[in-house]
């Protein structure tokens, strides 16, 4: 802890700078000799690219995995999860069990999704089967709600494909789009829709080592959710992304629309509600067992998504990464994974936000640094539990393999009885 580390960052964020400063580290430029680099995903990618010719030494550490897009690009994520399901099914794993209607019991955490234009025909087929569903269309590689829109008629998607004709030619396409079934029965609290942001830290993919942050938060729409579904053009109701909520007033057209955003973005709470209060509310109103089940499902959702990408991820020992998971809970208290961000915003919108993110970065650094405080690729990345801070160990395959010789991937979890629970994850909870 006492080591003075040369760090480097390409982000001017106070929560980062304050953390490095508190640890007595000093900043150097990327061209100097650095030990710890907190970089944007783009910077990191170019650093790892073949062209850069940069080779990291054993005492360097960076906050992204070179191939994080396997998890964070919506199209690749969908592909990886579909493959993961198929593999489990081929192995005959109980995890891949399906119910009477053909739905996966344990692996159905991603809304039905297709890639456009590649899966266009598949999508049309699915749409014709369930004509009364709403779909959400997102560019695969963008974040913060850019370029997202909703459709509930096939004509709309046809028109869109005509308008973007040139780019719809698979060979010319720049942006792949993903189209997913829109969660039409979201859980509403106080009549408002929200999504859940959970932070997950991965320090290694092979063996998989992951941690979940206890202080997640719910992001609320500032406008009330209209269940009649006629307000498709008002994106604010549907997207709970803070980047969008913040610009709500400026994008909206000044129409006499009854649901146009009238409230200002609140600078005190920023529409963010602590996950701890969510839990209290759900336990009080829905009971303990349903609430416990929801949170354990969320844990499993994260684990499955990480296991799905672990085999193909470049598990570079210099790397660690903190992901922002966006999750929507439906009114049956089932969590749905919406997307994963590799560079969760380090901008603080409110005082509480600043405290949370400062602590988050502090806890991340505590976990990823070896006991002597100097980055070292030869360290086994097993920190002592007093370094966890507000993180909880989700999974450490190495510790787990060493402690349990009956290691079985295939043991079922939910409803599979207490013994199989213990088998598949002895260190959880």
């Amino acid at each position, binding site marked *: 802890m006492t080591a003075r580390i040369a760090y480097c960052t390409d982000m001017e964020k106070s929560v980062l700078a304050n953390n490095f400063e508190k640890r007595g580290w000093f900043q150097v430029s990327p061209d100097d000799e650095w030990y710890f680099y907190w970089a944007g995903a783009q910077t990191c990618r170019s650093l790892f690219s073949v062209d850069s010719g940069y080779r990291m030494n054993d005492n360097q550490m960076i906050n992204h995995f070179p191939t994080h897009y396997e998890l964070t690009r919506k199209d690749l994520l969908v592909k990886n999860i579909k493959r993961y399901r198929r593999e489990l099914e081929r192995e005959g794993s109980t995890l891949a069990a399906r119910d009477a209607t053909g739905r996966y019991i344990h692996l159905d955490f991603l809304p039905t999704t297709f890639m456009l234009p590649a899966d266009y025909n598949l999508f049309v087929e699915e749409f014709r089967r369930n004509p009364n569903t709403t779909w959400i269309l997102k560019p695969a590689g963008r974040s913060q709600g850019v370029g997202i829109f909703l459709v509930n008629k096939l004509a709309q998607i046809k028109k869109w494909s005509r308008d973007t004709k040139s780019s719809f030619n698979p060979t010319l396409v720049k942006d792949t789009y993903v189209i997913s079934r829109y969660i039409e029965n979201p859980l509403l609290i106080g009549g408002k829709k929200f999504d859940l942001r959970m932070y997950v830290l991965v320090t290694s993919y092979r063996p998989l080592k992951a941690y979940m942050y206890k202080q997640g938060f719910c992001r609320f729409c500032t406008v009330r959710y209209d269940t009649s579904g006629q307000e498709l053009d008002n994106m604010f109701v549907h997207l709970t992304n803070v980047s969008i909520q913040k610009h709500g007033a400026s994008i909206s057209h000044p129409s006499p629309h009854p649901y146009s955003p009238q409230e200002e973005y609140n600078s005190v709470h920023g529409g963010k509600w602590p996950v701890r209060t969510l839990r*209290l509310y759900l336990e*009080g109103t829905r009971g303990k067992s349903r609430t416990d089940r929801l949170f354990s499902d969320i844990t499993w959702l994260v684990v499955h998504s990480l296991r799905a990408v672990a085999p193909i991820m470049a598990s570079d020992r210099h790397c660690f990464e903190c992901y922002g998971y966006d999750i929507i809970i439906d009114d049956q208290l089932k969590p749905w994974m919406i997307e994963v961000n590799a560079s969760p915003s380090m901008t603080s919108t409110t005082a509480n936000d600043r405290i949370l993110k400062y602590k988050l970065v502090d806890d991340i650094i505590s976990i990823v640094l070896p006991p002597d405080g100097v980055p070292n690729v030869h360290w086994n990345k097993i920190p002592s539990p007093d370094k966890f801070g507000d993180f909880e160990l989700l999974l450490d395959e190495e510790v787990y393999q060493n402690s349990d010789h009956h290691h079985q991937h295939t043991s079922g979890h939910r409803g599979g009885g207490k013994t199989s629970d213990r088998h598949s994850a002895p260190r959880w909870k």
Partner: protein
Amino acid sequence: MLRQELGTNITAIVNRLASELQNTPFYPDFLADVQTTMATQNFSKERFGTECYEWAQGTSLDTKLRNALYHLMHVQPTLLANPDTPRQVLKEPLTYIRKAQSSWERRLVKCVNSMASELAMPLARRRTKQEREELAERWADLSTDETDLTMIRPVYAPKDFLEVLASLRNPNYDESVEENLWGSIQLPLKVNDIKGLVELYGELACCCKHTGLDESVVGEYKVNLTLADERLLLGQKVVERNHGPLSRELIKSGCPTSLRGVLWHQVLGLEITDKHCKYFEELVKAVNQHELLVDKLIMKDIQLTASNDDQYFVFEDILFQVLLCFFRDTEVLSHFEHSSASPPLAVARGNTPTPDNLVAYPPCGVIPFHGFTMYAAPLSCLYEDPVHFYFTFREMYCRYWYRLHIVTSHTQGAVGLALQFELLLQSCETRLWQHCTTMNIQLLPIVFKWIVRGFSGYLVPDQLFHLWDVILAWESLEVLPVLALAVVSFRRENLMDVTSQTAAEAVLADITAMRVIPLLKLALATDRTRDREG
């Protein structure tokens, strides 16, 4: 309190309780149940009374009757007083306190009236048809209402009320002869000292298996369960019994989160039926019919408090509904029977004021102040249904919260609690008190706002619920100054370093990280004398 007020005239009291019970909404339903049950039993005609009585022991009818009586005595403690006592003495025995309260009321009424004339708004007005339709449409999202509230100012804030309390003097008290009071509250009221409080909250001080300490430790009786799981199982059994006093006992050692809603109802004697739903509907209609000036006050208060609170902003729409209804609910007036306060009266336009055509304004008789919303806000984390939410809030207000903003000599009134805090500070934190006195730092104004709001908005909801559990379980607000003292003790070292009022305020500005039960135990620990010297 109940015991000492029981006069010699037991029979008269019993008769009064019986007749009062017959006036409650509980009675007709109960009578019908009794008649149905009796008709199905074969009792002999001669011994009917005795047989009935023997048969009923331990049945659910018996429990219902006991619950009803239990709650009646708690809601209207004055029923137990000597029947010869004049009403105003029952409300408030001390003349000078009575006077102070009525002059405080006059001040509030004047303030509301001048606001009405300033804004050129009537106190109440019938909505036009179009307005009624618009309101009905917007009922579910009143927070998006565009009414301009910039001109509206809260009638008063806890700080203003504290000034009034600090200015109170007992005209019969000779300061030159009697022992001096050193704090800002100068009334020689009898309040519990630390010894009395330790005795009162003894179980809390001693119990080390409280769910507010650590839920994940092993259970008290079953070592294979965690404390949380064990309490949940126990709690489910208690809930089934539906017996108020039993539920109260359970809550004393911590309330399982998932059962809190129903346990609180049992402790408060609430059973939400269709009647409640209909009554609430009527209140909603009343909101729709008339617009009141106090609506603006409470809407402004919601905006200033809950809408800006990172824990409760989610529920602002429900708060609008519940609070707008509350101010029209004339059943709230019944709490004035045992309060030193009286409802402000107004006369309908066009009428000449005679004692007969005066009505309470607002209809519930309570004028909102800055922070009033916070009595209701936490309950939104407990009840999804506005009807359940509403009646819980109303019951808690009429039992406890009303005392926090009236002038009364009651030990649980604002002035009693403020005095209790100051005396606790002097006796338990003497060094700190001395330091503050030397530096001219006043801690009471800082903690008074916590006390007046029952700490709502200052603690995170799960911790606040532990505190409110204690209030309900011991049926007393005296825990509020104890917690205030504990928080101050907890920050003692930081406070010992400050030399100005602003710095002290900064030390105590954010208490959201506080954990209620450990702090209360700390404050009530009997061997604290040693700590203090050390």
